[in-house]
């Protein structure tokens, strides 16, 4: 159970550059729920995710995961609760380290790191098994530098890395936005499989209305730092992209000049 309690985030408060990125978001995620988050540029999607992950400290409000108030914790201190995949495939992996080394880093996530060897033979076996499901042949390239992989391959490994250790919520930050359509479809497919297999509670930020409705069990829409729309269950199944767009216009109370912002 994840609760975002009345979150407010203001960047550069009191200065000319003041920006209220999030203005009072209340959100509860049940265990196993897969929530997609949609909204225009600047609606606060990424800020919301970064607040959950600990990169952004809310000006007001609390982030509670499994009854534990994690608001004061730094990003690296809550990785046993929140696992994430970044938008940029380069951000989620270390280019000069090998595939095995990158996975070893993720494998030790949330555990105490000591002076034991980071990669034992038993680890290599586990890594190979996980990589084999991708059908990319990466299981035979454990000792290749990950920087030599394509963006899609790196993103696939990032996703595997994120779920190597248990967590309470998986945070996906437009993790297919930087990929070509075919690769994006592959990653989305993989995401769907993994989330279903492990019954993960997931928060996925996306730019695409198609994805927002096609994936997951619940969709929320942000507008100017607020949740303007929250739909799940039967009602959501009947929704089409067009309906979502209409709803957006109605809820926001104004026409967007450029629908492309939302449809891309």
């Amino acid at each position, binding site marked *: 159970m994840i609760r975002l309690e009345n979150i407010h985030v203001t960047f550069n408060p009191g200065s000319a550059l003041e920006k209220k990125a999030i203005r009072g978001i209340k959100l509860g995620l049940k265990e196993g729920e897969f929530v997609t988050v949609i909204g225009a540029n600047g609606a606060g999607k990424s800020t919301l995710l970064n607040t959950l*992950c600990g990169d952004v400290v809310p000006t007001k409000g609390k982030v509670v995961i499994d009854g534990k108030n994690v608001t004061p914790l*730094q*990003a*690296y*201190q809550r*990785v*046993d609760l929140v*696992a*994430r995949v*970044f938008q940029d495939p*380069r*951000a*989620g*992996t*270390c*280019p*000069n*380290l090998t595939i095995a*080394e990158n996975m*070893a*880093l*993720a494998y*030790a*996530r*949330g555990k105490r*790191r*000591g*002076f*034991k*060897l*980071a*990669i034992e033979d038993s680890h290599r076996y586990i890594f190979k098994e996980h990589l084999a499901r991708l059908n990319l042949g990466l299981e035979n390239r454990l000792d290749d*530098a990950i920087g030599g992989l394509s963006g899609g391959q790196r993103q696939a490994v990032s996703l595997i*890395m994120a779920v190597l250790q248990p967590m309470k919520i998986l945070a996906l930050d437009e993790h297919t936005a930087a990929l070509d359509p075919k690769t994006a479809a592959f990653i989305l497919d993989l995401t769907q499989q993994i989330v279903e297999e492990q019954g993960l509670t997931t928060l996925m930020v996306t730019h695409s209305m198609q994805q927002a409705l096609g994936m997951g069990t619940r969709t929320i829409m942000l507008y100017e730092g607020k949740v303007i729309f929250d739909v799940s269950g039967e009602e959501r199944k009947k929704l089409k992209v067009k309906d979502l767009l209409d709803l957006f216009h109605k809820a926001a109370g104004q026409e967007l000049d450029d629908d492309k912002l939302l449809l891309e």
Partner: protein
Amino acid sequence: MNLYQFFGALELGFLYGLVAMGVWLSFRILDFPDLTVDGSFPMGAAICAIFIVSGVDPWIATAAAIIGGMIAGLTTAWISVRFNILHLLASILTMTALYSINLRIMGRPNIGLLGEDTIFTPLENLGIPSGTVTITVMFLLVLLVLYGVHRFLSSEMGLAMRATGANDKMAAAQGVSKKKLTIMGLSISNGLVALAGALFAQSQGFADVTMGVGTIIIGLAAVIVGEAILNPRIIVTALFACILGSILYRLTITLALNATFLGLQASDLNLITALLVGIAMMTPRLRSKLVDFKARRGAA
């Protein structure tokens, strides 16, 4: 260059190989250009020398020097990560302070160690020539340190350190604390440099407060020359490159200073070093420009 000079260069090559590994740790692994070494090298020598002349066992004196260096590295890292001060600036602060601290440690600008017991003395007492003893002990110590650093970087903690230097956002997402590992890395790095300082004092027979000037650039020279030759892709090769680079650097310097037609003298050392590092750093850039130029001309 005669044989005597050659072995002298080799000995100093091993010694500064330790400095090179320390500089490589901060510069390449942590991406933290750390000038503290200009202060931690003489600090190692100072601590070791004052302990030895006070009658302390030379191994304990050497260990104390390492600890002193580690504290210096820790200070720089702490100033930098705790108060978010630019790494270069933080290290200059520590380096500056260390000059005074080293004077305080020694109580005078220099200490001679001639006739004192050093870690080399027991072997020399067996009748082995002192040149052979120093070079062998240094060689073994360098290998030991190389193994130790490699083992550390292969550990869970060491891997985390490599990640935090290369991509701190990713490292944080895997639960790695950049602060903690920067502090740890710089401590190890400066501990190695102080060890080199302690060995320098014992093999050369003195500690001097100004002996640290240019340590960072000598370390960098070794790292860059070694990398240019071995082009390392894995940690072991990178560490060997540090030592090889250090030896080659020493040999080059000895050659340059001995080439009478150049008319150089010992005080030109730092100028030659700076030129060498400058050329080594510019070479890759010039090479790629040349390739680019040829390609453009070919396309025209």
